[in-house]
């Protein structure tokens, strides 16, 4: 059985596999390598995905969702076409949710991998002979990740990673949209969802244009009024100042944790669509006193890297002399009582057992003592986090064990944490005097759905009909036309409405020949309409 690598992005998703020599991207139904992470429902409850759904964001915002990855694992709920989708049903963490999603889709999720690690792996295999230390900055649509890696003698070693799961290109678009509304004294609430999605799209386009041009104009109409707003690069600097500041701290943390000196870094790699922005590159250039490099298409690199990691996992012959060593990205430990002054104790402190950025797999022990006379049991709560107080960390589980009665401090237990390569944590406690052992497995990033739960979810999913592959292109045409309709005014609208009706009636005839012929004409008409929107 072969393993594919999937880059499930906030804005775009890609799939790749290892062909025995190198990673290859797999095109979707309409032949594109990149599929927008958008879904939409049509009137008869069928599902559209990718480009057609993206087009429908503007014409049918109430039936479409994008950026849902951001909400995975949170309590957001989507109501589309009368059906409810609750990511929260499944889990409390994004990674867990991703895994469940994969499983529900009928895939066996082998491993969830770090985006920047994947990117770095793609880069490492790409320029294999090099012996180097580098830093990968991955700024996508919704997440920001930084990793420091080293390559030598066929070893790919991750030194440290850090990130912000709520920072990306979509936040920049959001900021530009807010700025536009303020500049034009528009009220967010006065806009229809259609208009708002249209405005976001215009702002996104402007953002992209500012990556190559010094300035551009955002054109937007709502109801009867039309707005034209000039935006320059220096406006953008100003708008994004605070948001960009947030890039600094994960970068600094990754450098700090890796203990690598800046002068020892051979390269700074940029990955992810939003790193195309000059202001992002400038900031990074300033921080590192050098120009960042990009050798592989920033959109493809993560997917390519996942395919390579899949091949590494199945020990592909071509990669047999490459070993990747990864790290545990956060600190794991237990809660303890701390002695403050003589005989004054305070509860709620965090005792780290596995420190963040330890190479995995890893196993570590700490010895704990009883603090009270005749204490009957020791209860260990297991936490993940970086605060010295457990209340600011995330609780993962609990293990309890009885100890023989004795004076305070006489009894001791060994707490052993074993963290494996798949992110599974095993905690075992041993009472030293009785040798009794208690073990608990915490699959911090794993899902524990029962078979019934999976079956029930599959059944729910079965009710959703997805358009057959042959129809994908036709659906995209219609979606495009509907979006153009939304963006146009007056006579042009009527014209678009009429050609859409005509195309739909031809599709209904199911006569392949005439569909094919008309489709071509339809494409050309759309193209010319697209070129002059106003």
């Amino acid at each position, binding site marked *: 059985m072969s393993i594919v690598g999937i880059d499930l992005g906030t804005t775009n998703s890609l799939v790749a596999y290892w062909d025995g020599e190198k990673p290859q991207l797999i095109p979707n139904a309409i032949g594109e390598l990149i599929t927008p992470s958008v879904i939409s429902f049509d009137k008869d409850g069928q599902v559209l995905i990718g480009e057609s759904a993206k087009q429908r964001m503007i014409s049918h915002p109430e039936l479409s969702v994008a950026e849902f990855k951001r909400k995975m694992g949170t309590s957001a709920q989507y109501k589309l076409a009368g059906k409810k989708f609750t990511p929260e049903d499944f889990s409390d963490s994004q990674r867990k949710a991703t895994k469940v999603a994969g499983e529900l889709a009928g895939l066996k999720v082998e491993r969830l991998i770090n985006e920047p690690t994947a990117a770095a792996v793609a880069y490492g295999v790409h320029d294999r002979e090099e012996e180097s230390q580098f830093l990968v900055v991955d700024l996508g649509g919704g997440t920001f990740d930084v990793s420091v890696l080293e390559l030598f003698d066929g070893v790919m070693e991750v030194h440290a990673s850090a990130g912000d799961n709520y920072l990306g290109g979509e936040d920049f678009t959001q900021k530009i949209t807010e700025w536009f509304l303020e500049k034009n004294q528009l009220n967010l609430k006065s806009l229809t969802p259609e208009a708002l999605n249209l405005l976001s799209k215009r702002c996104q386009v402007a953002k992209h244009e500012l990556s190559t041009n010094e300035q551009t104009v955002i054109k937007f109409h709502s109801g009867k009024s039309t707005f034209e707003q000039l935006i320059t690069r220096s406006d953008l600097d100003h708008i994004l100042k605070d948001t960009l500041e947030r890039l600094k701290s994960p970068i600094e943390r990754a450098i700090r944790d890796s203990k690598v000196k800046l002068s020892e870094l051979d390269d700074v790699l940029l990955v992810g669509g939003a790193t195309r922005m*000059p202001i992002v590159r400038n900031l990074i250039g300033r*921080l590192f006193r050098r*120009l960042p490099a990009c050798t592989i298409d920033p959109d493809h690199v993560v997917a390519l890297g996942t395919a390579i990691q899949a091949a590494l996992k199945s020990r592909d012959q071509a990669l047999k002399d490459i070993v990747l060593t990864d790290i545990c990205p956060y600190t794991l430990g237990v809660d303890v009582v701390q002695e403050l002054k003589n005989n004054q104790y305070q509860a709620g402190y965090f005792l*780290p057992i596995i420190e963040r950025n330890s190479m995995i797999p890893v196993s*570590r022990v700490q010895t704990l*003592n009883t603090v009270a006379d005749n204490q009957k049991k020791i209860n260990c709560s297991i936490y993940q986090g970086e605060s*010295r107080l457990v209340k600011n960390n995330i609780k993962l589980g609990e293990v309890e064990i009885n100890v023989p009665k004795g004076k305070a401090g006489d009894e001791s237990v060994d707490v052993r944490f074993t963290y494996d390569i798949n992110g599974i944590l095993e905690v075992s406690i041993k009472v030293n005097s009785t040798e009794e052992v208690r073990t608990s497995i915490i699959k911090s990033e794993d899902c524990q759905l029962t078979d019934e739960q999976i079956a029930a979810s599959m059944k729910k999913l079965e009710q959703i009909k997805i358009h057959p592959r042959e129809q994908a292109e036709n659906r995209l045409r219609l979606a495009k036309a509907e979006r153009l309709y939304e963006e146009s005014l007056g006579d042009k609208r009527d014209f678009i409405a009429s050609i859409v009706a005509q195309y739909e009636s031809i599709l209904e005839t199911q006569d392949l020949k005439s569909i094919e012929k008309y489709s071509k004409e339809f494409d050309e008409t759309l193209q010319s309409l697209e070129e002059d929107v106003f």
Partner: protein
Amino acid sequence: MNCWEVLVIEPTNDKKAIKRAYAKKLKVTHPEDDPVAFQELSEAYQSALNIADYLELDESVYDEVEHDVVEPNKVIVNSESKQLIDSIPQAEKIELTKPSGDIEKIELIENLDESFNSNEKLDLDENKVAEISASDTDSFIDYFLARMNSLYRNSDTKNDIELWNDLFTEPMLDDIEIKQRLRYQVFDFFSCVLEEELQSKTKDLFDKNIVYGASEFFDWREDEISLTQYFGHESVDIVMSRAYGNANVSTDNVESKESSSGFSVSWFFWIFIIYVLTKLFASLAK
């Protein structure tokens, strides 16, 4: 087995050789196949790299230290590490001149219209990227610490947020290394002055917004655990509770819980330095 025996090489400070030896063994000690052997190998590798940094100082040191070093779980007191952090320079001694960092020059990196599809690497134009010289860095750090001290010691400026803000937005602070070097020194300063305030029971408290600002700027919260290991719970509590309000832990539920057997997870690196330094001093004294 000490780390060199695990890696099957003679003790050396040649990091490349250490890496080569590690890579060779790693190919037959795959992390997925044999986690225990892998951990032994990876720990030996990390110890060897750490030792290599100090090996050239004194050839005889490694013989004595390696035993302590290769056992990462050993619990050792490390309050001494506090001394390792440079002491805060006194305002009187240092002239308050701002070094002219070249950092603005870096703004030149603009309009990079490189095409992503090309497989070539970007042509790095070294001249465009300014280098900050070591002496600039040192004098900026001295300046920063002295300025901080003088702001604090003068009751007119002590709580002047504007002035503190100016200091923390110095363009030189954009530099990762400078910021890194200041991070613990500034923490040390804040914890010392807050401790003084507590002891002297003064009414003229340091504005919590300034402490908060500094903490956010240096991201101290991300490293509470290691800060605690260097400075102790008390110092961290003092700074954090001033910055974020009384974040202290509750005192209930004490008896039913366990306590740590004494100290913290071995702070490998620092312990090592302390060990080497004491050895060094001992040998010098002889």
